[in-house]
């Protein structure tokens, strides 16, 4: 539904990839991922235009996180292709920043906030290059953007959940990437963090970056995002929030899991 224009000649000759979305910041074609014999996501086509802020929404187990992980090459795919600016991930690695779920790591790790944010500079630092003043400035800048400048020397285990999430975002910011993929950035964080994160994401969008975030809170969808991708293992709908965020689409995506009360609460 959202993949490129069909370029099949009348004789049915299969032509090469369509030209329109070839160089889009982030493109997925026919992506299927499965754990065992049941697909976690099936036949996903998706193109993110530059400068968009996209929410991925769907019920639990809809494959939202899996979609991002497959895009980042963390889980193997059954079929499909992923490209960033028309290039496979391998060649575009440094243009893409990934923010994993906060719960995916053990925060009782002997490191400080500074250490973690500095990890984002690994592509520049490599194995042995010394950390220069400019590098330190980049770390400080990223920390300031998420309002964590006073916590640089803090042990990461001593942070609140929201602060940990901000550290993860800061780490991605130091990568100075063009595409940001965030897995549940608003999950289990305090209100202040939520505001801080969404304003950072909106600034990124203004700078022309492409931001895609897995989301689960229906009530904030319209204010946070300009594009919405509704997913329940298969793509349910994709487009501008105003068009996609409808009762029909939500019911299709969530099935019986969404009560009428919930729909009322968000004014649909």
């Amino acid at each position: 539904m959202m993949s490129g224009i069909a370029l099949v000649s009348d004789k049915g000759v299969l032509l090469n990839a369509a030209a329109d979305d070839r160089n889009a910041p982030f493109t997925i074609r026919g992506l299927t991922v499965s754990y065992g014999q049941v697909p976690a996501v099936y036949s996903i086509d998706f193109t993110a235009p530059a400068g968009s802020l996209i929410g991925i929404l769907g019920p639990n187990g809809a494959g939202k996180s899996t979609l991002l992980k497959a895009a980042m090459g963390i889980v193997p795919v059954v079929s499909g292709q992923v490209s960033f600016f028309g290039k496979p991930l391998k060649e575009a690695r440094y243009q893409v920043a990934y923010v994993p779920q906060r719960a995916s790591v053990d925060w009782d790790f002997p490191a400080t906030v500074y250490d973690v944010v500095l990890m984002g500079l690994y592509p520049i630092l490599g194995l042995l290059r010394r950390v220069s003043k400019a590098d330190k400035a980049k770390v400080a800048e990223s920390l300031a953007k998420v309002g964590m400048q006073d916590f640089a020397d803090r042990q990461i285990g001593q942070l609140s959940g929201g602060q940990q999430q901000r550290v993860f975002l800061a780490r991605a910011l130091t990568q100075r990437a063009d595409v940001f993929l965030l897995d549940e950035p608003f999950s289990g964080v305090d209100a202040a963090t939520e505001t801080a994160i969404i304003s950072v994401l909106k600034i990124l969008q203004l700078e022309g970056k492409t931001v895609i975030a897995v989301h689960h809170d229906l009530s904030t969808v319209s204010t946070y995002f300009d594009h919405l991708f509704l997913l329940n293992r298969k793509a349910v709908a994709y487009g501008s929030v105003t068009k996609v965020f409808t009762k029909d689409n939500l019911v299709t995506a969530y099935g019986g899991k969404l009560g009428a009360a919930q729909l009322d609460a968000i004014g649909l």
Partner: protein
Amino acid sequence: MGSEFVALGLTPILIAAFASMACALPGNFLVLRKQALIGDAISHVVLPGIVVAYLLTGKLSTWPMMIGAAGAAVTSVILIEMIKRLGQIEYGAAMGVVFTAMFAAGVLLLEQSDTSRVHLDVEHALFGNLETLIWLQSDGWASFLRFEDLAQLPPQFVRMFMVLLITSAFTYVFWRPLVLISFDEAYARTIGARATIIGFLLVVLATMAAVAAFDAVGSIIVIAMILCPPATARLLTNDIKTQVLLSLFLALSATLVGYITAGYLPLWLGFSNTLSAAGMIATVSGLLLAISAIYGRHRNRIT
């Protein structure tokens, strides 16, 4: 401390110290990556590796044994990974299947082979023979300046020293990716840190340290030294650099205290027999862990 000490005591102590530190270095990352028991698995499969090497070459020379042991260790790591992934079995259980079966095969082969003529026995594999690694040619500290005496150092001395150098160099050069994959492996992958290769190299490094150390000091001290100093250091600091340095210091301390307790204390107390030095070193490292587990500043989980 006279010439007798240099000839009889110094080399075993230094060899044990090199071994302990070489094991503790990769151990830090194994502990943080929750792969602590890889050390356990490696030290169990060393035995079948050596037996197979002996059966293939018919000789009990050092290099075939080391290669056999290393080969068995790497094989076991690959098998564990295979069983875990293909069979969807959890890591610990896959490990338990592989190393016990390989150990059983090793014992069986050992019993079947002609062991009466060779000094290859299970006890040696488990306990080592630290006390025999003496430097008879030495007549005191001055021997360190004489080339012909240095050439007579026990081969384990040079080997263990080289292994310590290699593990140190590896840890230094690959510090950043090692920390990255220990903290957040998925992210490390996305940022191009070659998580799979670094993770594998780490295990290979631990294997190398374990195999070299096993030849010198037996396999018990190997597991204890891979795990105890890093675990102890983990309870004393919240900074990974400090943790690694501290673990080296703890490994060294355990070696000195352990060796002296085993080799000299009984004599000073008037007994005529010494105790197993390797066993005592590992025991002391356990005591250090116990102390830090009770009093350590950072003993508690913080999240």
